[in-house]
């Protein structure tokens, strides 16, 4: 990383220069630097509105960058140790979709764990790729999906030497990492592209003592949620390329679906946030790590809760753990993670990231203050004192083995009919059913419905998980192939 280069923020610089030119706008957006929408300008502030501008000569064009955006992308690539970086304005979902569509044509096989983000399923429908699932395995004590074991990946590669890509999370939502360097080596030997969802791992490229980043491990592509641990505005993201992929092809893929009116608020936020991480990342993530470690110790002292850390590393499926993630297992408190999530919000005015059946995640970042960490710990101690019980959690962590019977794309567009959930076993689903949290598919388009899946959906409904993905909002009817 070139620390002199990283002090630059070309898009911000160009926008400052533009402001001083006092250009008269006869272009969109029609609010004309906020003057045409006083209520919105009052709400956002005049400064924010004044930089909500459209592509123009001095500001470059995201669809075909030649000047300041190109420079910003080159500097970002340098920061992440990538061969190329794309500024993305439709969330990391768009980065994930672009990776898969760039690597897979219709019918191409892609190896992946089941605990992938919803955007991966969207990418399968759009690209026509065929998923080959690898069971990430569940840690029985924690009730969380682990990474993928090397033996499982070796078997999957042996059985599918023609796979176009392998997709993995680095880390998972809970902070768990697979053995990325080894996976890259195995995939490379067979010419399989390695695509990494680093939505929760932006900081790996900038902090100390953190798991290895996708680019450092030699992966081909990585989707980085700069707006999560990187501090940029919601919806802004980076797509990173290693040396192998053709950036011009990837640009074409991105442009298939990306807006031609990219928000400069988002792009400037990427520019400034990248500069901040490059120059101050070590201190920032040291501090975040210290806060998370402190909170982990305090929470573990309360009793009942288990805030897990690096001790869960097992050298294989849990190859590494991101200690900035404050993931807490609640099973021994007698409470579901979801219940703790609700009590924190409803009674203690604390909003955490998510709660699932046996865990919750409190997102710790550079924006946190120690006194807020104290509030979280004290509230958790109160919740345990007031609501803790010996109820044995009745939780079925059975992994629902997906039976892929048709290409997701074909199943999604096929002739279909609605059947009652109870009658759907044995039919091929045209729809996605997802349990949120944690946002992992129970059934995806093209998969055979099984009794186990039907039972799990019933169970998830009973424990109050919200189910999404189907046309029927209540998930009582499911569209299946005729």
């Amino acid at each position, binding site marked *: 990383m070139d620390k002199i280069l990283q002090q630059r923020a070309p898009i911000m610089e160009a926008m400052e220069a533009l402001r001083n030119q006092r250009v008269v706008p006869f272009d969109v957006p029609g609010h004309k630097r906020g003057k045409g929408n006083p209520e919105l300008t009052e709400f956002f502030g005049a400064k924010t509105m004044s930089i909500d501008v459209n592509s123009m000569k001095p500001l470059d064009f995201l669809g075909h960058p030649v000047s300041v955006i190109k420079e910003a992308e080159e500097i970002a690539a340098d920061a992440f140790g990538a061969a190329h970086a794309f500024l993305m304005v439709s969330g990391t979902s768009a980065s994930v979709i672009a990776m898969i569509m760039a690597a897979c044509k219709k019918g191409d096989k892609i190896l992946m764990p089941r605990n992938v983000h919803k955007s991966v399923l969207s990418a399968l429908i759009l690209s026509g790729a065929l998923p080959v699932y690898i069971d990430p395995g569940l840690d029985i004590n924690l009730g969380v999906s682990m990474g993928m074991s090397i033996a499982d990946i070796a078997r999957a590669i042996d059985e599918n030497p023609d796979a176009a890509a392998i997709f993995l999370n680095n880390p998972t939502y809970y902070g768990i990492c697979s053995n990325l360097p080894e996976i890259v080596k195995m995939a490379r030997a067979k010419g399989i592209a390695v695509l990494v969802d680093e939505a929760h791992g932006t900081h790996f490229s900038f902090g100390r003592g953190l798991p290895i980043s996708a680019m450092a491990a030699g992966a081909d592509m990585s989707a980085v949620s700069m707006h999560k641990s990187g501090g940029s505005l919601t919806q802004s993201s980076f797509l990173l390329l290693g040396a192998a992929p053709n950036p011009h092809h990837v640009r074409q893929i991105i442009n298939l679906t990306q807006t031609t009116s990219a928000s400069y608020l988002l792009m400037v936020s990427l520019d400034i946030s990248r500069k901040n991480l490059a120059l101050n990342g070590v201190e920032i993530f040291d501090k975040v790590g210290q806060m998370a470690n402190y909170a982990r110790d305090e929470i573990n002292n309360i009793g009942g809760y288990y805030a897990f850390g690096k001790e869960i590393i097992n050298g294989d499926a849990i190859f590494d753990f991101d200690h900035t993630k404050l993931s807490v297992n609640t099973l021994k408190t007698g409470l579901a993670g979801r219940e703790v999530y609700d009590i924190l919000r409803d009674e203690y005015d604390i909003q955490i990231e998510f709660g699932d059946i046996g865990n919750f995640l409190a997102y710790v970042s550079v924006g946190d203050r120690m006194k807020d960490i104290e509030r979280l710990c004290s*509230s958790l*101690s109160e919740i345990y004192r007031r609501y803790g019980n010996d109820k044995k959690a009745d939780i079925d962590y059975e992994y629902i083995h997906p039976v892929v019977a048709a290409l997701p794309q074909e199943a999604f567009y096929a002739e279909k009919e609605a059947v009652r959930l109870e009658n759907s076993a044995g039919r091929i689903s045209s729809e996605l059913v997802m349990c949120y949290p944690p946002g992992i598919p129970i059934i995806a388009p093209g998969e055979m419905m099984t009794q186990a899946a039907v039972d799990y959906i019933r169970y998830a409904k009973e424990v109050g998980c919200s189910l999404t993905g189907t046309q029927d909002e209540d998930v009582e009817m499911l569209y299946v192939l005729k």
Partner: protein
Amino acid sequence: MELWFSEKHTEFVKMSIKIDKHLHGETSDFQRIDIFESYEFGRFLTLDGVMMMTEKDEFAYHEMLVHVPMAVNSAIRKVLIIGAGDGGIVREAARYATIEKMDMVEIDPQVVDACKRFLPKTASALDDARLSIYYQDGLKFIRKAKNEYDLIIVDSTDPFGPGEGLFTKEFYGNCYNALTDDGIMVNQLGSPYYKNDAAAMKRAYGKLAGVFPIHAAFQAHIPTYPSGHWLFGFGSKKLSHLDVNPNWDNLGLATKYYNTQLHRGAFALPTYVNNLLNEEVAP
């Protein structure tokens, strides 16, 4: 030359005190600390520009926070004091020979040092042998205590700033847990008068009321605080706030504000304040 300290009590109301000297100013890890010498109020302490205490009117505040609970339960032996870096609470509590142990938890050592140097009248008992001072977050300290204290006195800053964690439901719950069966907690609740202060006071009181089965608010007149009308919270597990020990007067403690007649009167609040406290409070 005229030198004035001014504090905005609302966006549209300002209180000013003419200053003789700026005795001390420093910025700690937590806040800006200033001590002034004034003509009318003697020396006074401000944190982040907000009035904490003056030598002239601090007696009302400190006496009410200590003597009200002490007159309800003469068997108080172990006291936890949160905040109170100026030493005023400790000074009043130290007058009871029956108190065996005082733990004081203050987040900012620089406040204590500055008060010892410049406010000796208030900080006079900070060297009392029964006192242990812990420099840490009050919320953290109390999380670890269980069935340990007979009295908890919370002398905090406003609900906005370093003291904000001391106005939360988790803090009150932790206090409840740290108290013995006869335990009492008192805290400063702010003013019921100006709109924003009243809203914060009502919220804090609602949380206190949600945790302690016996709860009440009492008042005092403190001229240098916004509106001069100040409220305190009283929460207990069993003991009634109006059940004053008839022998308190025999202790012979000379006070400037508190007396047992006033004790009962202090819980008699103006109608608008009663209405404010009795409205439905969001949890």
